[in-house]
């Protein structure tokens, strides 16, 4: 069976986007009120289309078949003679379908809006960007008063601790570094024992040694000269002091010195 409608629309068949699209087409074609679909007619017409598609050997997407089943189901429910008066809360079997169709209709209509807008806006033209100078980076200071404050508090705390530390150290040095005269005499004797001539400023100078150490070294030297283990020579006033060993029968280790404090 082939209706005129079917034939007229055969060409359009493959263009339907889906079962809703086809249903919509039928609804509009028949000028049907969406909210009161004559389900019998629509179902028949829908089936006609599917038949036509089959005749044309078009592959019918499963979605179309699902819709066909739905339509047939609704149709059968509506054909059932109702024995009792319609209950208030009885749901129209078409309701779910109608809700879906209404939802679909919104987007279908908006599709048309999109198409029109696209047509308008594809007629505007843009301009290529001008060649801009190389990207420059501007730096903006990101600072916080709170950090400034806490950094200052920290640095002062550290400073205080350091100062305490330094004064402690100073005390320790002053108390502990009792440069012993004995150790200095031993140092000088060791050097002299190797038969070396000593430049005083080479071993005790204020750049490398503390003043205390240099002074003690000087005393030690005098002591060594005093006991006759060395001779001192200073060619020029304020000039270099040379200390030369004096050969002795005594072993250096046995020599006793007065240890001045």
């Amino acid at each position, binding site marked *: 069976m082939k209706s005129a409608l079917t034939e007229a629309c055969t060409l359009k068949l493959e263009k339907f986007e889906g079962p809703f699209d086809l249903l919509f087409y039928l609804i509009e074609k028949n000028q049907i009120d969406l909210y009161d679909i004559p389900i019998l007619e629509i179902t028949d017409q829908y089936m006609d289309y599917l038949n036509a598609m089959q005749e044309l050997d078009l592959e019918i997407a499963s979605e179309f078949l699902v819709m066909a089943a739905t339509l047939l189901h609704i149709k059968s429910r509506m054909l059932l003679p109702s024995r009792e008066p319609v209950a208030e809360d009885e749901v129209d079997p078409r*309701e779910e379908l109608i809700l879906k169709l209404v939802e679909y209709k*919104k987007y279908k209509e908006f599709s048309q809006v999109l198409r029109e807008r696209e047509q308008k806006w594809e007629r505007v033209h843009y*301009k290529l960007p*001008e060649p801009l100078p190389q990207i420059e980076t501007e730096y903006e200071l990101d600072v916080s008063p709170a950090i400034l404050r806490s950094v200052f508090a920290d640095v002062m705390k550290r400073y205080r601790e350091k100062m305490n530390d330094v004064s402690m150290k100073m005390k320790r040095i002053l108390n502990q570094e009792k440069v012993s005269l004995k150790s200095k005499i031993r140092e000088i004797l060791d050097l002299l024992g190797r038969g070396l001539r000593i430049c005083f400023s080479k071993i005790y100078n204020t750049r490398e040694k503390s003043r205390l150490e240099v002074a003690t070294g000087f005393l030690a030297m005098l002591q060594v000269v005093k006991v006759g283990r060395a001779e001192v020579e200073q060619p020029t006033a304020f000039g270099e002091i040379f200390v030369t060993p004096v050969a002795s029968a005594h072993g250096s280790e046995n020599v006793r010195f007065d240890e001045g404090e």
Partner: protein
Amino acid sequence: MESIHDVEVIIEAVLFASGDPVSLEKLAEIIGHDKKTTKSLMTNLMYKYQNASRGIMIREIDNAYQLCTKPELDEYIIKLGSVRKKQGLTPAAYETLSIIAYNQPVTRAAIEQIRGVSCESVLMKLVERNLVREAGRDDSPGKPKLYETTEEFLRVFGFSSIKDLPALELNEVQEVMENMPID
């Protein structure tokens, strides 16, 4: 500080030189005003261009501004001889795009539910054309991908932002319920 007049001159020059859209932030920074002032200044300026005897106008796209020619002058610009690429979308693509536009971010399953057909390949084409992009994943089981429209979508269809979409009658469903015939 410049007068309003001068600021409009600066904006024209900057938008012209850019060619591409310039963000509201950047414009505000350049003219030395806050974003709110700049925004109202731009709205005013857009109106002025639209209504003046001008061949160009300002478009707002996603909080950025761009100069373009007025659509009605297209016929003259075509005569310049630049080639136009135009590949229309399929009806399925428009439908899918409509659904995404109003429901973004949305899963493919949700789109298919509304359209009643599969739309995997349509979706892929829309992504390819940069009208739609992936937007993370849904929390539902299987963590399906979500889709949303892009800036290119706004540009192609002349919307300044997604908020600009014409309102669909939300009451329609309710209306349907009320209009349901009682047989």
